[in-house]
C-alpha cells in the first residue's frame, strides 16, 4: 500500500511517500512495523496522540482495519482556514 507523510511527520521520516509491503491488520499494527524499522520512524510515531491518520483520504483512527485500504496517510492535527 502507499503510505504518505505530511508536515513534520514527513520531515522526521525524510520522505513524502513510500510503498510498504505489509500484512498489518490495523493502523496500529502498521505503526508498530514502521516504528521498528529505524529511529526516524520511531521518532515520528513516538506520540500517537499528536498524530492523525487518513485511510483512502478519509479521516480514520488507529484501531481501524487496513483490509482493502490502498492509501494510508499520517500527519499532525490540521491547521487550515
Amino acid at each position, binding site marked *: 500500500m502507499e503510505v*504518505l507523510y*505530511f*508536515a*513534520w511527520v514527513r520531515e522526521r521520516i525524510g520522505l513524502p511517500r513510500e510503498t510498504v509491503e505489509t500484512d498489518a491488520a490495523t493502523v496500529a499494527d502498521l505503526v508498530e512495523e514502521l516504528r521498528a524499522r529505524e529511529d526516524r520512524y520511531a521518532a515520528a510515531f513516538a506520540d500517537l496522540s499528536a498524530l492523525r491518520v*487518513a485511510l483512502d*483520504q*478519509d*479521516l480514520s483512527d488507529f484501531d481501524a482495519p487496513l483490509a482493502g485500504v490502498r492509501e494510508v*496517510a499520517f*500527519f*499532525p*492535527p*490540521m*491547521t*487550515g*482556514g
Partner: protein
Amino acid sequence: MRIAVQTAAFDLGDEANAFAAGLDGAGAVVTFTGVVRDLPGGGLQAMEIEHYPGMTEKAITEIATQAATRWALGDVLVIHRHGRLALGEMIMMVATAASHRKDAFEAAEYLMDYLKSRAPFWKREITAEGADWVAAKDADEDALERW
C-alpha cells in the same frame, strides 16, 4: 457550490461579485476571508501551507455539502490557497448565500470551524530564525462541539 484549492492569489472583490451575481433569490451573502497575520512580537517573513492533494478537495466538498444540508443555502464558495504566502496575503475565503442572514452567517461559521480542523492543510511560519509548524489549538477542536 464551487471549491477551489490553488496556489494563485484571488481577488476578493471579483470572487464576491461573481458569487453574488450567480444567485437566484438569495437575500443574504456572507463572506469571510483569512489573511496572513504577523506573529505577536513581529518577524514573520512568510507562511507556507502544505496540503494533501485529493483529500483536501474531498474533505472541503464534504464539509460544504454538510453545511448545505444543515442550512437552506442558495450557494457555497470555498477558495483555499497553499504554497508560500507573504504577510497580508489572503489565505482563503468562504462565501455563503441564503434567503436570510442567519443561515448565511451560521453556515459560514460552520465552514470555518470545520476547515480549520478537518481540511488537510498544515501551516508553517517562516522567520529569520527558521520555520515552525503551527500547532493546532484545543479551542479549534472544541469549536466543533457546538455544531
